[in-house]
């Protein structure tokens, strides 16, 4: 098996929104609007953006937790978007999710044992004794003792719950895990423990991650390739070292500038973006970022920028910005 594990092609997810009196005027919220990327085996695709940019919706659309409006998702060559219910259920064991809120993501009235056994039983992982051994193994993998299995989620701390959530996702031996803000709710000291755990799991099981986060530093730490989202579109995608060293899109640059640095000697810099993200119900014409872009040109408000590959040595670096379009010129 060669080729990428995950291919996302022109994926879109639109929500109809009713507005006005009696909900008569219908609008469309383009939460995800034509996103394409691919992810190699054993790699992590980091997805960053501000709240409302559609990154969580994209993650759920990939897993078909949200039904995509159009576009395709190929997992190991299988078109996820074309599957019927039974086919989708079979594919579910290959793709799992880790959630943000360690308090809301585990059924509060079920013991850890039952939480972990459920996916195993559903996807027919052996008989009862085998499944029971597997549950212990999973607890061990995520660094929890066997005593944990008879406890309820509320008896654990946030970091420990997140480990249980990871164990649940791992239970069915998936190839792909979508992690949606998986460490955002954790304290720094616990966050680093969980991030290291995820790195270990990737090394050990060859997992691929789509790692969704608003935290650029965390994304840099875990990702191999990073995609930056703005108003439902990927505006820049590049290998991690490149995107942090030479961000090509003005939005990426602004995001990087805005991250507070734990170093009081560096208070200078900072290109503070003006304004706020426009409503995705009414995105600006042309380039979606032109209303806040410090380098906007007249063409930006009228024409949607093409996606251009400015990568070197066969490592793609795609950016959707007129500044890099040789046909537009600066």
């Amino acid at each position, binding site marked *: 098996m060669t080729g990428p594990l995950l291919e996302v092609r022109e994926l879109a997810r639109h929500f109809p929104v009713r507005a006005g009196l009696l909900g008569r005027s219908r609008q469309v919220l383009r939460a995800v609007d034509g996103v394409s990327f691919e992810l190699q085996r054993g790699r992590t695709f980091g997805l960053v953006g501000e709240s409302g940019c559609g990154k969580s919706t994209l993650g759920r659309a990939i897993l078909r*937790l949200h039904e995509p409006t159009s576009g395709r998702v190929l997992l190991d060559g299988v078109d996820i978007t074309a599957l019927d219910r039974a086919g*989708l259920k079979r594919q*579910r064991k290959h793709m799992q999710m880790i959630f943000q809120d360690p308090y*809301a993501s585990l*059924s509060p009235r079920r013991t850890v044992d039952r939480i972990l056994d459920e*996916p195993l039983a559903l996807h027919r992982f052996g008989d009862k004794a085998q499944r029971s051994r597997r549950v212990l193994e999973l607890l061990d993998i995520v660094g929890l003792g066997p*005593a944990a299995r008879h406890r309820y989620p509320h008896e654990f701390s946030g970091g420990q719950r997140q480990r249980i959530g990871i164990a649940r996702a791992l239970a069915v031996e998936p190839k792909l895990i979508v992690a949606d803000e998986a460490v955002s709710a954790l304290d720094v000291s616990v966050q680093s423990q969980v991030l290291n755990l995820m790195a270990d799991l990737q090394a050990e099981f060859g997992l691929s991650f789509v790692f969704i986060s608003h935290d650029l530093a965390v994304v840099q730490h875990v990702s191999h390739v990073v995609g930056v989202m703005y108003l439902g579109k990927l505006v820049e995608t590049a290998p991690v070292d490149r995107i942090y060293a030479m961000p090509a899109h003005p939005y990426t640059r602004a995001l990087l500038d805005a991250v507070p640095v734990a170093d009081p000697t560096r208070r200078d810099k900072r290109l503070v973006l003006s304004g706020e993200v426009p409503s995705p119900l009414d995105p600006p014409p042309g380039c979606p970022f032109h209303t806040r872009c410090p380098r906007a040109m007249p063409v930006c408000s009228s024409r949607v920028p093409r996606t251009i590959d400015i990568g070197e040595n066969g490592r793609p670096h795609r950016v959707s910005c007129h500044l890099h379009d040789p046909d537009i010129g600066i």
Partner: protein
Amino acid sequence: MSLPTADMNPGADGRLQPVRKPANHSLWGRAVARFAADRAAMVGLAIVAVFFVVALGVWLGWWGGNWAETTGGQWQPPSSEHWFGTTILGQDIFARAVFSTRTAFEIGLVVAIASTLLGALFGALSGYFAQTPVDAVILWLKGVLDSIPFYLFVAAIAFALDGNPWAMHIAMIATFWTTTARLVRGEVMKLKNLEFVEAARAMGLHPLVIIFRHIVPNTFHILLVQATIVFVAAIKSEVILSFLGLGVTDSVSWGLMIAESTTEVIAGHYMNFIAASSFLFALVMGFNLFSDGLQDALDPRRPGR
């Protein structure tokens, strides 16, 4: 880098044992502890328990079995033999009031359990499938049932079933489930957006499994409180219906006793009325205290998680 810890992970978290939370380790355990600390609730529970024992005794034939027999003279005043005196037919009023406790519990339990089950089922379905045809049908049914005046509805069912003793039960169940369903629907709509439900979907579970295994258990606190409220409502309705001649026919109940007493009171005989209404008052009071305490104990928003 002087930190010695960089490679102690993931075992660094140390074969993690659960964070020890003091005492009661289940969610119910904590609710019980809170309930036990609530004095009014415990009084309510004691009253309900006494009544339950009384009803149980009637079922088991320990007492009250002689409610229909003539054991004394007409309209005897309270005595050591007849604690509440006797009726016009010479029946022991105390025995009748005791036997009526069984009638009340029967009606309360049947109606509470059935309407809670119905309410949970329909509420969960319409909440999970909100804004779909399933929801629309259930809401429509609920709207129709809610719009029929209760007593008219009972009379209609009693008439349609031609004197069937279950007419009253059926009418109450058919009307009482709607409130439970409305509460459950709201809670389910909230719960279904939580991540553990998404996790269940991501696993590939069937929607009905998700609803009844993952979501409904989290509405138990609502169901329990709602069941106690319906229980009280059923007992009170029974009294009124029996009083109107629409309820119990082949047995005795507090409602029938009060109906009988209407003519007696004019003649100066109050015991039938006093017995029935004080039993009713005590049980309803006890149940309300119990139900309020339950609600407080189960409220997930209470501080001290």
